[in-house]
């Protein structure tokens, strides 16, 4: 067993400790000790360890997700404020996912959920079917493309 079984987790914990306290040597040491013990505790649980293959694509993913969140916020606000004329357009959408990595699926769930207008309902891991609910389902293909081409392909490049 290595000293730091989860380097990324330890690094995030140290950074979090220092943002909550202050950026001083003392807090770096204290946070470092806490992060080391925390990562040993995490190792005892033996969680699935994500393997990030292409780091440079992460900022790009964060960028397009933030942009999409802004865009879909505007879309949902206009639907809510437009009122009753916009009814009967929401619906369910089943998408077949080729993504298998657990961490990547978790990130996809966060993306789908945090963009207003799409809600992750159910994922079937045996055949890879994802059921989402879309508030403004005018063009089914458009939403399938959004999840498949915009997010899934990028996540697969990063994690698989």
């Amino acid at each position, binding site marked *: 067993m290595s000293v730091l079984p989860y380097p990324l987790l330890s690094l995030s914990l140290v950074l979090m400790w220092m943002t909550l306290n202050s950026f001083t040597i003392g807090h770096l040491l204290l946070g470092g000790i806490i992060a080391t013990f925390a990562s040993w505790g995490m190792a005892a649980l033996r969680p699935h360890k994500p393997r990030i293959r292409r780091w440079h694509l992460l900022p790009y993913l964060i960028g397009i997700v933030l942009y999409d969140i802004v865009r879909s916020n505007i879309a949902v606000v206009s639907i809510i404020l437009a009122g009753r004329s916009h009814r009967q357009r929401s619906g369910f959408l089943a998408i077949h996912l080729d993504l298998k990595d657990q961490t990547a699926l978790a990130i996809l769930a966060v993306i789908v959920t*945090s963009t207003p207008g799409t809600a992750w309902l159910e994922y079937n891991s045996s055949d890879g079917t994802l059921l989402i*609910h879309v508030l403004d389902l005018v063009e089914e293909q458009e939403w399938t493309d959004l999840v498949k081409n915009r997010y899934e392909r990028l996540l697969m490049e990063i994690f698989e």
Partner: protein
Amino acid sequence: MSQAADLPLWAAIAVSAFLLLGSALALIGTIGLTRLPTFYERLHAPTLGTSWGTGGVVMASMIFFTVTGSRPVFHEILIGIFVTVTTPVTLMLLAQAALHRDRAEGDANVPPSATAGTGAGKEAPAAGTAD
């Protein structure tokens, strides 16, 4: 709030703009929660508050305390991260409960469970939560 008087004009404008944006989005989200007709549509409305609703208020807070406190303050960003990362958990729980109820009642508008092939409204446990 004696600090607020020391705030330069540009920061005051930025803080109020972000604060108004964030709270307006949260308000519109709650209006949507009361106005949208079905459960699944109502799921979407509060995500306005958890995405840019939180984001706007957090940005305003960061700008205000960074400008008045003379050192960078960005631990608020942790609030944004944790709200974003934990929202899917509650949302999926609610969605799974609703799907289970509607399938058990044989609601035709809800797609059948993908797990059992033909198993609409079975007692099968809600398989296929994320991870």
